[in-house]
C-alpha cells in the first residue's frame, strides 16, 4: 500500500533553534498514528508541518505524491479545505455561530459531506445544534470540533492534544469516537499527545525526542479507548 503522507528530512528552525532535526516518516492510509513526546520535543511542530499549517525550514511533505510544501498559498488552502482537517486542544469553535453552523462551516461541499443529523447523533450533540459554543461544556465543544472536522470526510485528521483540556470520561469518549470514525469513514488519524494511555490505543506510535524520531513502533495489540487507565 502507498503512503498517504510522507515527510522527507523535515527541519524547522525557530529563532536560531533547531526544533526539528531532519525527520522522515510515512503515514499509511486508514491508520491511527500517535506522535508521542514530552513538551518541547517538537511533536506539535511536526504535526503543523504535516498538516500544512507551518512551512518547514527544509525538507518536503508529500500527500499522495504531491509535494504540499511546494504548494502556493491558494493550492494549500484548497488542499486543507478538501483533503484534511484539524482538531485543536482549545477546540477553536467560532463563537458567533451555532453548533449547527460551526459544523456546516467545515463542509467543503454540501453534496459531498456526511449527513449532519446522522453525525450529530453519532457524536451525541444532536440536542445542541441550535446552541452557541459558550453554552457548551468542554467535552461537548470538542465533539462539535470533531464533527466540524469530519463532516467533509477528510482523508487525514490531524489532532493536536485533542483531549488535553478534557476530563477522563470525555477524553475516553473522544478517543473512542476518533477510532470509530477512522473505522467507519476510512480516515487516517494523526494524533499528537504526551499521554501514554492514548498511545496504547493507536496502531502506530512515533516517539519524538529533541526534534528527532526516538522510536517508531507498530502497536500489535492496541487497547480500546475505554480500557485506558487515566493516571
Amino acid at each position, binding site marked *: 500500500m502507498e503512503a498517504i503522507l510522507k515527510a522527507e528530512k523535515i527541519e524547522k528552525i525557530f529563532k536560531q533553534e533547531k526544533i526539528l532535526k531532519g525527520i522522515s516518516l510515512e503515514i499509511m492510509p486508514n491508520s491511527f498514528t500517535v506522535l508521542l513526546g514530552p513538551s518541547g520535543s517538537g511533536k506539535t511542530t511536526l504535526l503543523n508541518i504535516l498538516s500544512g499549517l507551518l512551512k518547514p525550514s527544509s525538507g518536503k511533505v508529500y500527500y499522495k505524491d504531491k509535494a504540499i510544501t511546494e504548494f502556493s498559498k*491558494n493550492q494549500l488552502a484548497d488542499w486543507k479545505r478538501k483533503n484534511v482537517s484539524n482538531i485543536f486542544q*482549545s477546540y*477553536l469553535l467560532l463563537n458567533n455561530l451555532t453548533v449547527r453552523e460551526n459544523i456546516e462551516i467545515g463542509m467543503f461541499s454540501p453534496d459531498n459531506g456526511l449527513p449532519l443529523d446522522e453525525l450529530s447523533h453519532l457524536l451525541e450533540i444532536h440536542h445542541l445544534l441550535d446552541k452557541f459554543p459558550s453554552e457548551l461544556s468542554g467535552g461537548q465543544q470538542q465533539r462539535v470540533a470533531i464533527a466540524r472536522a469530519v463532516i467533509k470526510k477528510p482523508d487525514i485528521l490531524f489532532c493536536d492534544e485533542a483531549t488535553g483540556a478534557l476530563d477522563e470520561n470525555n477524553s475516553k469518549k473522544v478517543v473512542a469516537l476518533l477510532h470509530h470514525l477512522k473505522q467507519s469513514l476510512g480516515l487516517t488519524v494523526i494524533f499528537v499527545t504526551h499521554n501514554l494511555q492514548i498511545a496504547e490505543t493507536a496502531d502506530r506510535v512515533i516517539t519524538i525526542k529533541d526534534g528527532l524520531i526516538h522510536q517508531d513502533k507498530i502497536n500489535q495489540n492496541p487497547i480500546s479507548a475505554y480500557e485506558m487507565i487515566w493516571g
Partner: protein
Amino acid sequence: MKLLYKQMTKELSKNYLSLVLILLLVSFTSFIYFFVHFSVDGNIATLQSLPSLKENEHLYLNALHSNAILARNMLTGSVILTSFVFYIFYHRFMKKNYKSLACLKALGFKDSVISSLFWAFTFILSVLGGLLGLIAGYFASDLLLKSGMKSYQMSGLVKRIHISSFFIGIFIPAFFFCIISYLTYLPVATKETALLLSSQTDTSTNPFLLAAANKLANFYPGKNKLSVRLALRKPLALILIILAVTAFSVMFLLAYSLHLSSEKIYQSQILGHHYLYDNLFDKPRLLEKPLPNSMPYLNTSGNIMTAKQAIQQEVIAFKNNSPLFELMDDKGNMLPGPTSGEIVISPALRDLYDIKEGHQIELYIHNHCKTFTVSAIAFNAKLNSVYIHPSDLEEMLSLPPHSYTGIWSIENISDAAKVISRYEKMDELEKNFVSNRISAVINQLVGCLIGSILLFLALLLNFQDNTKDILILDLMGYQSGAIRKMLLDIYKPVIYFIFSLGLWPSMQIVRFILKSLSLQIGDYMPFQSNIFVIGGIFLLLNFIYFIVQWTFNLGINKIIKSDALYQYSNNE
C-alpha cells in the same frame, strides 16, 4: 462563505460603539465635502457657461472656487485622520482574533476570501457614512446658497452636485479605507497559520515598547508612575490622542483665523484710508495745481519677479502721506512713503512669498524692469498692491512729472471715468469674506465634533484594552474611583502635555494651510491667534475630557457590577 461572513460580521459588530463613532467620522468627512459641493457645482457650471460675467457674478465664482478648494483640502485631511482610525480599529481587531482567523485558515478559507470580508465591510460602512454625509450636506448647503444670494445679490442659484464630486466624496474615501483594511489583514495573511494559533490574542505591545514605556515612566514625577507606564504601553491609543488633540487645535485655529482674517483684512482697508471716493481716469493726467481735499496718485499694473514666479500687483505711486491716506505698520504707526528706489509692500507678500524688509525685488512694468529695495511693510496697503515713489513710476511709464491716473478725495469728482465710493469698497470686501466666515463656523463645528470623536475613540480603545485590568483591580479591592484614577485619569495630563507640545506645530500647520489656500484662491488669509483662542481650545478639550470621563465612569461601574468577571475567568 455565508457562515464565514456571519461569524466575522458578528465579531465586528461587537465593537458597535467604535463602529458608530467611525461611521460618524466617515459621515463628517463626506459632509464637509458635500456641504460645499452642493452649493458650488451647479452654480460654477452655470456661471462658466455665461458668455460674460457681471462684477457680482465674477466675485461669486471666485468664492465658489475658493470654497471648493477648501472642501477638497478638508476632505484630504479628514480621510487621512479617518484612515488612521480605521487602521487602529482593524489592527486591534485582527490581533484579538488571530485564533479565529487562524481557525478559518486551517479550515481552508483563502486569505483573499477572508480579507474580502473586511474590505467589503469597510466599503459598506464607508459608503453608508458617505451617504449620510451626502444627505446632511444636501440640507446644510442651503446655508451657503442663502449667504451667496444675500452677499452677492445672486438669483437663481441651484443646489446640484456633479457626478465627479459624488464619486470623490463617496468612493475616494471608501477606496482609501478599504486599502487600510486590506493592509491591516496583511500580517494575518503573511503569518503562518500555526504561528497565528499560538499568538497572544490580547493587544499587548512588544517587549521593546514595554521597556521604553517603563523607562519613560521613571521620569514622571509623583506617585502615578504605574498609571503612566500603563498609558505608555498603548502607543496606538497615544498616537490617536496626539492626532485628536492636534486635529482639534488645528481645526479651531484654522476656523478662528478664517473668521478673523476677514475682519483683519477689513480693518486694514479702513485704517489710514480716510478718503471717501476713489476716482479713476482712463488716461494719465497732469496735475497743474494742487486740488483741495484730494490726493492724486499714479497707478498701473506690474509684476514682481521672484525666483519661482511673477506676482501681479497694482503699482501705486503718490508723493507724501496726507490726511486722506497714510501708510501704516501693524501697530498703527505712520510709515514714511517710499523714496526713489524703495518699495513698500503688503503683509500678503511677506507672508505668502517671504519677501522681507531690505530685500531687493525686481518690478516689471510694460517690459521695463527696475530693482527696488523693500523699505517697509504697510499693514494697510491696498490688497494686491505695492507703493513706489512717483518719479520711479513716471520714469518706467515714460510719463512727465506730476502725472496721475486717480484721485482719492472727500468729494465725488464729476469727470472721472469710474468712481468707487468708500461704501462700495467696504461692501465688496464684505462679500469677499462671507464665504470664509461660513467655512469658519462649519470648521469650528466639525473640528469640535471630529476632535471629540477621536478623543472618545482613543479613550474607548484604551478602556476596552483595560477591561481585564479593571476586573482584576476590583477583585483586589480597589474602589471604582481608584481604578478610574489609575487607568483613565492619567490621560488628562497626557492630553495637557500633548496640547502644550502640539500647539506650536498646530500653528505651523494652520499657517501652512492658510498660505496654501491664499495662494490657490488668490485671497490673502493671514494667520490669526491670541491667548483667548488658545485658552478656549484648552477649556473645550477639558470639557470633552470631562464628558468622556463621565461616560467611562458609568462603564467602569457597569463592568464591576456585571458578572463579567465570572464570564472572563471562565473564558480564560
